[in-house]
């Protein structure tokens, strides 16, 4: 069964090999001429990028290339940094999320985020997952129970956690904590999931579980993942975007990027020829 899904997945990916516009897949996130500044320093230059719905897009590139800044621009996490400024547009379903009337708090409920280091709250497993719901004003225990279970199931943590929902989240292993963080993000019902090197602090087995999870989640979510692990980008993503020095160098079907990249820079980067 899993193999079948994989084959279909690959075919679906193959279908979108050409630029997303012609693939017929509606871009969930549409980035146009996006510039980003920290004070007077520009960190992103004229990024034009379409991220198709219900696909995994991997952002790769050397440290400091702007890929994390770009990721954090999608849920406006950069807003808290003094002097941070954005130009151009990032639209979700056609609506510019940098428009003046956008409610950032509401935006972040549509765009979940998973961080590099797992960061569960020092609360119980249950309360971690329920956190976003409680913030959103849900008090009904039945509703909370249901969504917490569903989120934990989706994050492939239910079987390991169902008997100790009342235990501290900090008692979980590193990989479980990261899946808990994914469940916590899923609980508020986002459409988009941003992942900032979600497995970089995990051992290979925990990493593999996270990757499997990402693979399954893409059926329901549009996922953007920043990773330094080239193999990981190759394994989990449908599309790959390569950033360097704040510019989007190349974007395309992951297979194409990893077998026959068009740009010399991309090729040098993914083959490790960078000086």
């Amino acid at each position, binding site marked *: 069964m899993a193999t079948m899904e994989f084959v279909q997945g690959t075919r679906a990916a193959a279908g979108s090999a050409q630029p997303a516009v012609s693939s017929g897949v509606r871009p969930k996130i549409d980035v146009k001429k996006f510039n980003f500044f920290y004070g007077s320093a520009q960190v992103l230059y004229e990024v034009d990028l379409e991220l198709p719905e219900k696909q995994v897009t991997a952002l790769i590139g050397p440290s400091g290339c702007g890929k994390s800044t770009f990721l954090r621009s999608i849920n406006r996490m950069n807003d808290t940094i003094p002097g941070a400024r954005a130009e151009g547009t990032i639209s979700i379903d056609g609506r510019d999320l940098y428009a003046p009337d956008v409610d950032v708090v509401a935006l972040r409920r549509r765009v979940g985020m998973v961080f590099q280091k797992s960061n569960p*709250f020092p609360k119980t497993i249950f309360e971690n997952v329920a956190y976003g719901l409680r913030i959103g004003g849900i008090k009904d225990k039945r509703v909370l129970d249901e969504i917490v279970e569903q989120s934990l199931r989706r994050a492939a943590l239910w079987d390991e956690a169902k008997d100790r929902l009342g235990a501290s989240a900090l008692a979980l292993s590193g990989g479980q904590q990261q899946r808990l963080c994914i469940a916590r993000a899923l609980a508020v019902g986002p459409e988009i999931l941003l992942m900032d090197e979600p497995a970089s602090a995990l051992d290979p087995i925990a990493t593999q579980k996270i990757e499997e999870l990402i693979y399954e989640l893409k059926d329901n979510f549009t996922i953007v993942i920043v990773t330094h692990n080239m193999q990981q980008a190759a394994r989990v993503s449908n599309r790959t975007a390569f950033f360097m020095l704040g510019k989007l160098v190349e974007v395309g079907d992951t297979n194409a990027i990893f077998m026959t990249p068009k740009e010399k820079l991309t090729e040098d980067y993914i083959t490790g020829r960078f000086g």
Partner: protein
Amino acid sequence: MSVDPDTTLRAYPPRMQPSAMSKRPRQIREVVSVGLLGFSAFLIIAILAVILGNIAYAGIGQISWEFLTKSPEAGLTEGGIFPAIFGTVSLVILMTIAAVPFGVATAVYLHEYTPAESPSVAWRRYQSARVGEKGKLLRHFLSAVLATITRSAVANLAGVPSIVFGLFGLGFFIQFVGRGLDRATQAPGEIHWGQGNILWAALTLALLTLPTVIVATEEALRTIPSDLRAASIALGATRWETIRRIVLPGALPGILTGAILAVSRGAGEVAPILFTGAAYYLPYLPKRLTDQFMELGYHVLILSTQSPDVEATKPLLYGTVFVLLALTFLLNLAGVLIRSRTRSKMRVGG
């Protein structure tokens, strides 16, 4: 080609020369320095032990039900110290109510809402900003300035001698606020607020404690990883929701411990209450905020300096000091217990 061993070895500093490899001189230095350091530590402990031992030895015999529950009698040479115990506890409670919420609020504002960067950095950022951003960054700069001023005020406050707090309490609370209230609310010539009382004393003491509470709270807030704040914000929480649900609960053990230690230190201070409400002797217990009160530290001072018969009051003096120390110790113990309980609860329980 053979290498002359002497030539190669000369490259090493003298203490690494093979001849210097014998451990003797360095080992001796090691033993001497460890000995000196250890002796200093031992000396401190020994002095403390002598003082505490002396007080405990002389004081514990004095403790009796009567001593703890009766008022001083016969010109302070007999009887108990109950009014002083009661006054001290009331004072500390009032002082805590005043200092802790205010101090915690100040620290939360400083740490969570003002910029982490210095005014000069914020100013440079303001200068290099584009026209459209100027307003936002000017506010940012001003808030950085405010934070810096507040922090240095807090630091300076902590360095002020406690007698100055006492004088300030006298001048500000009694003369200015109290008399002002009296003029506004009382008939001419009536003095109700404009004299020393337990409220003014507690507020004065609260001022003295405030810097410690602020610093301890900020320290506790600093231990909350920024990851957790980011996670909460990313889940659609506002800054205040994040503070209320994540930051404050996490920092609570630290805040409580800091607050209790600050309060216990304040509880032993006599100077601030000298002119602001502590009474030499009172036949009644304070019932209202405008009442004067007796206090243990002050009582010790009175016993040792104002007694008509110093020798006769000596046992009482030791007993009082012992009770004061025990109260302080209990407060400290409570602080430590709260810290360890809440910590372990966070790690495993919930």
